[in-house]
C-alpha cells in the first residue's frame, strides 16, 4: 500500500514506524509542516501501563524512550503554604523533543520517507495514496475537509491556561495553588529531563482578566507567571516557546474514518491535560491502527476494527478528563477545606482512585489521612473547633471511625443506617396506626451493628400527613410512649444515637404500601391531601388542596407537637423532611409550587413556609440537640429546583440553626430522573457541604467501607448511610 501520514508528531511517527515494521512492503511517507527540529511544547507523561504497550509494540523505540525517562512516584500538592505528598503513583516523563527525535530516527531506519517543512493545503495533492492517516493535530485539515463525514464537535474549556517550561529540577508531579489579588491560579508541573520541567498555569477567565493577561504579550505573560510562582521556583526561570493563553478545546468525533482516510490522536480526540493522556492516547491509537491493518486484508474492515477498539477506550478517558477539567474549573468551592482533605479530594477527583488505593500506594499518606481525621475532622466546615479538640495520636482508625460532634451530641462514628418503618409493616387490621413491636426489634437489631446513628423515618406528623395507612406516626400520645420505649432500648443496648425523620406526605399521601409500587392511590378510605398547589402527583392521584394560611398553621403546629414528643421520647436528632416531593418540598420546587401569594414565586418566597416550620421546630427542639433537614438538592427534571438553589437554601437553613443536611434528589414529580448508581448523591453532598458550609449526611447506595472512607476523607460528606446488601 502507498500510505501518506499527515503530521510528524508522536501519533504520525509511531503509526508509520509500526505499520512499516509489520509490513516492510508498504510505501510510507510522513508529511510534516514544520522543520525537523522545530517542536512546540515541553514534556509529556506516560503511566506504567502505557509503557507496557510500547514495549510490546516496538521494543527498540521503547528502550530508547525509557532510557531518556525521568521517572518519579510522588505527587505534591502545594496549597495554603503547606505541601502534602503522596507516593506510589508511577509516572514517567520525557521531553517531547527527545521523544520525536527517537521516533524520527526509528522511522528513517525502517525506510520511511520523512518530509519536513511540507505544508498540505489541498488534499487533492494526496489522491495518489491508498491510505491517508491524518495525525495532523487538533486543527486537522483532513477532519475539517470532511467535517460532515467525521462529525466533530469542539467544546472550549472555561479556564485559561498556558503551557510553559522551567529550568527547574522537580522531584514530584507538583500541583501548586496560589491565590493573589487577581484570583486563584493553579499549576500542574512535572519534570521531563534532567534539568527542566513543564509548568502548566491555569486560572479562571475572571482572574485572567483581572490580572490583565488579555492585554500582555508572550513576555508579559511569562513575567506575570514568574512573579506569581517566585516562591515555588526557587530562583529558576520560566521559559516560553511560542506559548499562548488558550481555553482547552475538547474534541469529540462521531466517526473516525471515511473511505481511505483515518484520524489519529489529537486530530480525532482531545482530553483535558490534567489527566495527562494526550500523547499516550495518540500513541495507543497508532498501536491499534497498525494492529488492525496487519490483521485485516481489506482496508474497510481494518479501519472499522481500529475505530471499534479505540473509540470506547478514548470515551472512558474523555469522561474522566471532563470530570477532572470540571473539578479544576470549579476548584474555588474547595478552598474552605484544610490542606489534607483538599489534597485527598484532588487525588480522588476522577472517581477512579479511592481511599484504599491511596493507602495501598502510600501507607504513610494513608496514616496521615487517618490521623488528620482523628484529630481535626470534628471541626465544622465553618471552621469552629468542636468543644473537645482531640489530642494528637500516633495511629488512628480510618475516617469512618472518627466521631462526629453536632451541638452537645457526639456520634461514635460516621456510619449511619437508615430504617424505613413502612417497609417492614405488612397491612394489618389490628394495627391501624402501628409503629411498633416488630419495628422495635428491627430498629434495635440495626442499632447493634456498631453504627454511630440509626435514622428512622419517615414518621408522619399527623394522620393526614401519612403516606400509607400503615405509616408510623408521632401525632398521638401513645405513639410517643412507644417511641420512648424504642429509643430506650437503642440507648441501653448499643452505642448508637437515634434520629427520627418527621414528615408530612403532602400530595404523596393516601397511597398503598410501597410493596405494591409507588404513589398508587388507595382503593378505598382515601383521605384528603394538601400541597403547595392543587396539582396531582400522578395522573391517577387525587388532586390535593392548595394550602391556605389556616392549613399552614395547622401543619406547622403538627410538626412542633411531634418535635416535642420526639424530645420527650429522648430522640437524639430530629430531621425534617423537605425532600422527594412531600409537603414541605412541594413548596420549594417551582414545578410543584405555582402559588401567587407570598409563599410562591422566587426562591425566597417558596422557601418561606418550609422555613417557618423549621423555625418553629427549632424553637421547640432543645437548644443542645441537633436538628437535621432532609433536603432535595435537585429535582432532576428540566425547569426544576437545582443544586444552585439548594446551596442557597442550605445556607439559609444553617443560618437558622440547622446542624446537618441529609442530601436527597428527585421524586419531585414522576418525571424526575436521577442518574442512579453507586454514590449517585455524593456530587450533590459535596457541593452542599463545601459551598453552604454545613455538614452533610449522604447515602445513595454506598455498600463498602472504601466508598465511605473516600467520601469522608475528601470532605464530600460528614456522615454516610450504608446500604449493606445483607441488611
Amino acid at each position, binding site marked *: 500500500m502507498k500510505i501518506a501520514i499527515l503530521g510528524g508528531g508522536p501519533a504520525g511517527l509511531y503509526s508509520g514506524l509500526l505499520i512499516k515494521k509489520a509490513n516492510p512492503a508498504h510505501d510510507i511517507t510522513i508529511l510534516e509542516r514544520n522543520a525537523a527540529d522545530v517542536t512546540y511544547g515541553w514534556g509529556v507523561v506516560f503511566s506504567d501501563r502505557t509503557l507496557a504497550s510500547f514495549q510490546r509494540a516496538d521494543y527498540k523505540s521503547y528502550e530508547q524512550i525509557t532510557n531518556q525517562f525521568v521517572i518519579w512516584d510522588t505527587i505534591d500538592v502545594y496549597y495554603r503554604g503547606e505541601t502534602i505528598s503522596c507516593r506510589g503513583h508511577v509516572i514517567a516523563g520525557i521531553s517531547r523533543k527527545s521523544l520525536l527525535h527517537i521516533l524520527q530516527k526509528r522511522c528513517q531506519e525502517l525506510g520511511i520517507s520523512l518530509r519536513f517543512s511540507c505544508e498540505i493545503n489541498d488534499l487533492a495533492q494526496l489522491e495518489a495514496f491508498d491510505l491517508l492517516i491524518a495525525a495532523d493535530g487538533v486543527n486537522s485539515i483532513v477532519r475539517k475537509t470532511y467535517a460532515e463525514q467525521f462529525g466533530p464537535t469542539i467544546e472550549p474549556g472555561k479556564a485559561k491556561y498556558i503551557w510553559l517550561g522551567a529550568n527547574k529540577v522537580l522531584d514530584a508531579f507538583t500541583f501548586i495553588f496560589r491565590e493573589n489579588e487577581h484570583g486563584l491560579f493553579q499549576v500542574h508541573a512535572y519534570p521531563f529531563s534532567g534539568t527542566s520541567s513543564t509548568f502548566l498555569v491555569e486560572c479562571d477567565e475572571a482572574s485572567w482578566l483581572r490580572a490583565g493577561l488579555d492585554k500582555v504579550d508572550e513576555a508579559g505573560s511569562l513575567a506575570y507567571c514568574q512573579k506569581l510562582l517566585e516562591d515555588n521556583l526557587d530562583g529558576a526561570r520560566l521559559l516560553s516557546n511560542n506559548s499562548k493563553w488558550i481555553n482547552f478545546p475538547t474534541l469529540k468525533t462521531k466517526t473516525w474514518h471515511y473511505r481511505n482516510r483515518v484520524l489519529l490522536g489529537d486530530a480525532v480526540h482531545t482530553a483535558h491535560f490534567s489527566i495527562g493522556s494526550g500523547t499516550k492516547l495518540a500513541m495507543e491509537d497508532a498501536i491499534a491502527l497498525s494492529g488492525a491493518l496487519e490483521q485485516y486484508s481489506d482496508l474497510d474492515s481494518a479501519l472499522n476494527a481500529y*475505530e*471499534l477498539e479505540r473509540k470506547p477506550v478514548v470515551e472512558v478517558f474523555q469522561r474522566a478528563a471532563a470530570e477532572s477539567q470540571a473539578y479544576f474549573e470549579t476548584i474555588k468551592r474547595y478552598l474552605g477545606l484544610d490542606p489534607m482533605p483538599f489534597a485527598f479530594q484532588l487525588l480522588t477527583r476522577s472517581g477512579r482512585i479511592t481511599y484504599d488505593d491511596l493507602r495501598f500506594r502510600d501507607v504513610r499518606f494513608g496514616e496521615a489521612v487517618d490521623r488528620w481525621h482523628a484529630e481535626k475532622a470534628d471541626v465544622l466546615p465553618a471552621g469552629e473547633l468542636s468543644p473537645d479538640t482531640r489530642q494528637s495520636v500516633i495511629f488512628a482508625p480510618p475516617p469512618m471511625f472518627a466521631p462526629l460532634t453536632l451541638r452537645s451530641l457526639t456520634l461514635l462514628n460516621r456510619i449511619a443506617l437508615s430504617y424505613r418503618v413502612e417497609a417492614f409493616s405488612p397491612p394489618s387490621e389490628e394495627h391501624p396506626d402501628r409503629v411498633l413491636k416488630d419495628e422495635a426489634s428491627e430498629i434495635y437489631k440495626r442499632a447493634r451493628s456498631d453504627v454511630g446513628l440509626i435514622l428512622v423515618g419517615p414518621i408522619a406528623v399527623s394522620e393526614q400527613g401519612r403516606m400509607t395507612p400503615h405509616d408510623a406516626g408521632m401525632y398521638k400520645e401513645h405513639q410517643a410512649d412507644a417511641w420512648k420505649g424504642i429509643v430506650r432500648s437503642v440507648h441501653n443496648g448499643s452505642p448508637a444515637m437515634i434520629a427520627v425523620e418527621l414528615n408530612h406526605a403532602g400530595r404523596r399521601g393516601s397511597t398503598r404500601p*410501597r410493596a405494591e*409500587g*409507588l404513589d398508587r392511590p388507595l382503593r378505598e378510605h382515601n383521605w384528603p391531601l394538601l400541597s403547595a398547589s392543587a396539582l396531582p402527583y400522578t395522573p391517577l392521584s387525587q388532586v390535593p388542596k392548595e394550602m391556605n394560611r389556616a392549613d399552614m398553621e395547622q401543619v406547622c403546629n403538627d410538626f412542633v407537637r411531634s418535635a416535642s414528643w420526639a424530645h420527650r421520647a429522648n430522640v437524639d436528632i430530629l430531621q425534617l423532611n423537605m425532600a422527594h416531593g412531600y409537603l414541605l418540598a412541594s413548596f420549594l420546587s417551582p414545578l410543584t409550587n405555582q402559588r401567587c401569594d407570598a409563599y410562591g414565586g422566587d426562591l425566597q418566597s417558596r422557601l418561606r413556609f418550609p422555613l417557618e416550620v423549621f423555625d418553629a421546630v427549632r424553637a421547640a427542639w432543645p437548644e443542645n440537640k441537633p436538628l437535621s433537614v432532609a433536603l432535595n438538592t435537585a429535582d432532576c427534571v428540566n425547569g426544576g429546583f437545582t443544586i444552585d438553589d439548594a446551596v442557597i437554601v442550605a445556607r439559609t437553613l444553617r443560618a437558622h440553626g440547622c446542624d446537618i443536611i441529609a442530601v436527597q434528589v428527585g421524586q419531585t414529580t414522576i418525571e424526575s*430522573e*436521577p442518574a442512579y*448508581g453507586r454514590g*449517585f448523591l455524593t456530587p450533590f453532598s459535596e457541593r452542599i457541604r463545601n459551598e453552604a458550609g454545613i455538614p452533610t449526611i449522604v447515602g445513595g*447506595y454506598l455498600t463498602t467501607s472504601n466508598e465511605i472512607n473516600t467520601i469522608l476523607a475528601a470532605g464530600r460528606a460528614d456522615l454516610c448511610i450504608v446500604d449493606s446488601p445483607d441488611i
Partner: protein
Amino acid sequence: MQVGIGLPSGNPGTSNQLIFDWARRADVGPFTSLGVIDRLVYDSYEPLSTLAAVAAVTQRVKLATTIVIGPLHNNALLAKMSATLDALSEGRLVLGLAVGARKQDYEVAGIDYRTRGRRLTEQLSALRSLWEDGAIGPKTVSPRGPDLLIGGLSDQGYARMARYADGYVHGGGPPRAFARGADKARAAWRDAGRPGKPQIWAQGYFALGDEATLEAGYQYMRNYYAFTGPFAERIAAGLLTSPQSIAQFMRGYEEAGCDELVLFPSVPDIAQLERLADVLAGVGRRTR
C-alpha cells in the same frame, strides 16, 4: 442465582416441533426458566403466544419474556393476554417489558417511536391496576398479577423500574457491565423506598460445539444485531462458546447479584440445550 435457557424462538428457521421439544426438555431441568425475546420485523416467533403454547407442554419452569416490547401493545389487551398466560401456566409467567431498541418495529406497528417512554410508563401503571381490579379476566394466580420486570439502560428506565415493577432485566454484556446496571437498579429501588430487593434478571448468548456450529452462532449474532451497525461485531464477540467461558460468565453474574440468568441459544438445535445442561451439571448446578 438460578439459570434458565432461552427458547430458539428468535432464531430464523426454528420449527414448531423444535419449540415443543426444547420446552419439554428444559422442563426436566436443570433450567429454572424458559425465556423469549421480542422483535417484530424479523423471522421470529411472537413471544406471548409462543409461551402460551409452551405452557401446555411444561409444568415446572418459569416462563419469562426478556423482554416484550411493551409500547407496541394495547394496555388492556396486553393485560388480558398476560393474565391468560398466567392462568394457563398456573402462575409461571414473569413479564419483562422494555421499549426495545429498533425504530423499525414501531414504524411497522404504526406506533410513534418518540412516545415509547411515556407509553411504557403509562402501561406499567395500567397493567397492575387492570390485573388487580379483576374486571379483565382471567383471574391470575397471584391477585396482583404476574411478576413484572423492566429492561433498559436509561436513567428514566431505572426510575420507572423502581416505581412500578418487581425487578430489572439486564440486556447483556460482560459481568462488569451487568454489575453496573444491577447497582443502578438497586440504588433506584432503595431510593424509592421499596421494601426488600428488586429481582435482577440477565441474559447471555451461547453456542457449544464444533467450529461450524460456533460459526453459525456468530453468524446469527451478527445478523440479529445488524441494526446496531458496527456494534454487531462486538456483541457477537461476547458469544459464550466454551464450558469455561460459560462457567466464568455465570460466576461473574452470580457475584454481581444476579437472581436469574437466561442463556439464549444462537444455534436452533436441541443438541445445544443438552450441551448447556451438561455444562451446568459440570459446574454443579442442578434443578432447584
